[in-house]
């Protein structure tokens, strides 16, 4: 692999690790594992943990995909691997 392509792939993997950590935390940690702890707080009439499980995680997923897409488009140009 050319050096620029290797650097591009490394940067991609780093971004993936960050995005997937967020993905894991909002659903598995906030929505399931820590649900009882978070349920002591309220958001808009919902217990917080319950809200993450049935609303918040989904909103986060949507934002996450668009952030990833935007960052990747930037990376594509920086490393000169973007489409014409």
């Amino acid at each position, binding site marked *: *692999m050319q050096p620029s*392509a290797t650097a*591009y*792939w490394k940067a*991609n993997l780093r971004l*993936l690790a960050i*995005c*997937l950590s967020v*993905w894991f935390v909002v*659903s*598995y940690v906030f*929505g*399931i*594992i820590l*649900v*009882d702890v978070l*349920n002591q707080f309220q*958001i*808009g*009439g*919902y*217990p917080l943990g*319950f*809200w993450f*499980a*049935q*609303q918040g*995680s*989904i*909103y986060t*997923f*949507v934002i*996450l*995909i*668009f952030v*990833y*897409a935007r960052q*990747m*488009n930037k990376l*594509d140009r920086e490393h000169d*691997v*973007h*489409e*014409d």
Partner: protein
Amino acid sequence: MDLQTLTYLIVGATFALYIGIAIWARASTTGEFYVAGKGIHPVANGMATAADWMSAASFISMAGLIAFKGYDASVYLMGWTGGYVLLALLLAPYLRKFGKFTVPEFIGDRYYSQTARIVAVICLIVISITYVIGQMKGVGVAFGRFLEVDFEVGVMVGMTIVFIYAVLGGMKGITYTQIAQYVVLIFAYTVPAIFISLQLTGNPLPQLGLGSTVNDGSGMSMLAKLDSVLVDIGFAEYTAQKGTTLNMVLLTLSLMIGTAGLPHVIVRFFTVPKVKDARASAGWALVFIAILYTTAPAVGGMAIYNMIKTVQPGEVGSENLKYAERPDWFKNWEKTGLLKYEDKNGDGMIQYYNDKNKEYASKADSMGWKGNEMVKIDRDIMVLANPEIAKLPNWVIALVAAGGLAAALSTAAGLLLAIASAISHDLLKGIFRPDISEKQELMAGRIAMGGAILVAGYLGMNPPGFAAQVVALAFGLAASSLFPALMMGIFSKRINNTAAIAGMLSGLTSTLVYIFVFKGWFFIPGTANLANTPDNWFMGIQPESFGAVGALINFTVAIVVSRMTTPPPEHIQHLVEDIRVPRGSGGASGH
């Protein structure tokens, strides 16, 4: 106008629209037939993906699950949306760059093995057929209840409509039809939800309504009210967790990985012009899916609240609803057999409570209750009956029927296309008759589609007894076989043909065996080796949650085998390097 005429009008109008689109968007090349010529705008593709993905299960069944399971149903909400994050980040852009027509084609090329391709075709066909049976059943139920025609006639009408636009238009026709179907289904889902949210809380947004104060003067929030109403009749709190944390985590993970591994969803990202579009399109798909998925918790919660309040209008202990005075929706659903009442204490009233709760038994006894009298409430009726329970106008009820049909038909078409392309492109063109012309392949694709529709229709009319259980199987299979093979194909250059096949087969077999041991071999009753109870489960893992474990086995076996065998040849390593960068996607083709 009466309900039935209105329903005929609205459903008829949507069907006419779908057929009109089919005639306008005919496919003339294999590229158009398989992947809509790779020319679909990412937002349009997102909308079509949403309709493709949201099946009768999402539209009809999910809110019913939420209504009766409360917090525990969160696994479906997170599992069926979080999978899109995996798809967008780990698969879609790379598979689009690869630029071929089908999922098995990628597996066959990346692992330079016809065997791997055939294993992938088999997984694809089993997964897709399983799914399509459920859609056909959904079509039959919607027709049966709202248009009052026989179940079989309903299935046949549905098959004919799908036949017209799927065979004519292939992916191109299906995509444009799905966009129309998305509009119909999302309108049908959200309109009643807005009405009901307004009625109960005064807040027009169902997503906020579920947390808002109920209009009954109690000053409680909708969720707190639901907790107390359920506890009053002996059930657990709505917002409380009932299952184990391990099973919730694993089931969510299985559904997410399974979603990302479903061939008919993956193939949707082959239809956009660029790699960049594939990333964005997954985001748009999830936006359109999230509109329904964030509304569903309110639909489920408010439906169960309205239903309990209908049967139990006052405090527990005061008079319940008299059976003789039951509302029309109650009578209509009784006719379908999906709702059943039994007057156990002979008082002519309807008591709905948790008669399995031993601590509640003495209270029930003191009120003269002799058991729960709503002996059957099929979860699937909650969404369909919801507008009637809330006494909404007839046009809303008719709209829900059209929406349910749109959801079932759009998913069925996507699945049938996946099956048809696997047969005509992977088996016929790829393996048995590589020399056929494009025209012949297109014809083969249309014939395969026609055949798949007939098989699906037959199975829809004569559903195997295990139809409901195989949904878990479909996700388990996709999670344990296809997803790991696809992901490793992109993220590892070291995985070779032997490793991938060993991985797929071990993931697949372990998941199948685990499900069969508890649910019966091939779901034949009486052949289960162990009772399906928590004591018998391996580490307390329920069979539905095992897909994630199967995926882990697949990854492990593939990595270990790859370390013991030789790396893939040079040209395959170049192929992997090539799909990792977006540049050069424009020139890709199906050959």
